[in-house]
């Protein structure tokens, strides 16, 4: 797959107390889309918070569906709610043996036209059932910002606690042409 995925940055949590945030900054306008692969667990069970360009104004909205252990088709976030300071998606366990995997695509991240506001499409999976019965979880959805600004930074954090040691995250640039 020549030229399709290029690793732009990666981060592995090495601190025993964990990292409060994973930030990718200085993202250049070198590709067409961005892809983030996050494999993590938390110091506490939490949801994942995503925003870009350190913009914590109420410009973010997300919409998704979640499938938890035995509940189907529940909404994870709803666009009818007020814009938020971040896009929130879940679900991050606090069990190292069963890290949650999250894939995020930021399509058209360089676009600045209103009709092409950068979008995030995500899915997160934690399949744990043995260690913590009832934590099996899958979610998918999309989010966006009302601020049509090219993405130059991606900021990941948790609603509570830190990313725990050995959690890791990679940022890739995707080119649509080779």
């Amino acid at each position: 797959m020549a030229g399709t995925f290029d690793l732009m940055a990666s981060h592995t949590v090495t601190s025993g107390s964990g990292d409060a945030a994973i930030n990718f900054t200085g993202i250049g306008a070198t590709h067409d889309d961005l892809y983030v692969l996050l494999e993590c667990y938390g110091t506490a069970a939490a949801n994942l918070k995503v925003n870009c360009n350190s913009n914590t104004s109420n410009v973010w909205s997300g919409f998704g569906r979640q499938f938890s252990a035995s509940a189907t088709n529940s909404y994870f976030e709803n666009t009818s709610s007020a814009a938020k300071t971040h896009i929130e998606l879940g679900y991050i366990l606090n069990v190292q043996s069963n890290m949650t995997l999250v894939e995020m695509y930021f399509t058209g991240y360089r676009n600045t036209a209103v009709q092409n506001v950068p979008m995030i499409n995500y899915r997160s999976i934690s399949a744990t059932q043995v260690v913590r019965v009832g934590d099996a979880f899958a979610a998918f959805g999309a989010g966006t910002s009302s601020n049509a600004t090219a993405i130059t930074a991606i900021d990941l954090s948790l609603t509570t606690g830190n990313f725990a040691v050995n959690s890791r995250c990679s940022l890739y640039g995707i080119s649509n042409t080779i």
Partner: protein
Amino acid sequence: MSKEGYHFIATATGSGNPTSITFADIPSGYKALIMMSAVKNNSSGGSLAQATVQFGTSSSIDTGSNYYWHRAGSTNGTTYGAYRNSGQPACYLVDYAGSAYSTMASARSIIWGYDDTNQQTQISTWGGFSFNSSSINSNKIWSGGWTNTGVMTHMKIDAGGGITFDTAANFTLWGMK
């Protein structure tokens, strides 16, 4: 040539109509494994089949009740509630149909924690199929895992129910760098 992204590991097909295929000697060192599946069985019936997946730390695939899974989705137009199960002999991969229908199921799986001895091997698959002018269809999200924290090197895909894969079935395994 990009150093990153999807790196081809192996492909397997339904040539010879096997009841299962096995990826052997899967190398360590990838952030995750990606498997693209095109699935069809050789049964003349059209009934829904379910392919399963098992793992091993060597050529010996673990057939014990050491798997758990979680799923949600729809089958034949009916939405099924999320459901979980543990102590199972395998995880599920994808629902698919027999040779009576000229359709194949398509699925993308991602497998992580497979070479990390602090983690269990986990797998998630999103996939399904639809057939024109028929109520035969399925779309599912499957996730699951293997309770073993050893380095997974072998993965077996079984057609399920003792049936065989159609010759057109195709599984391709990639490593994500």
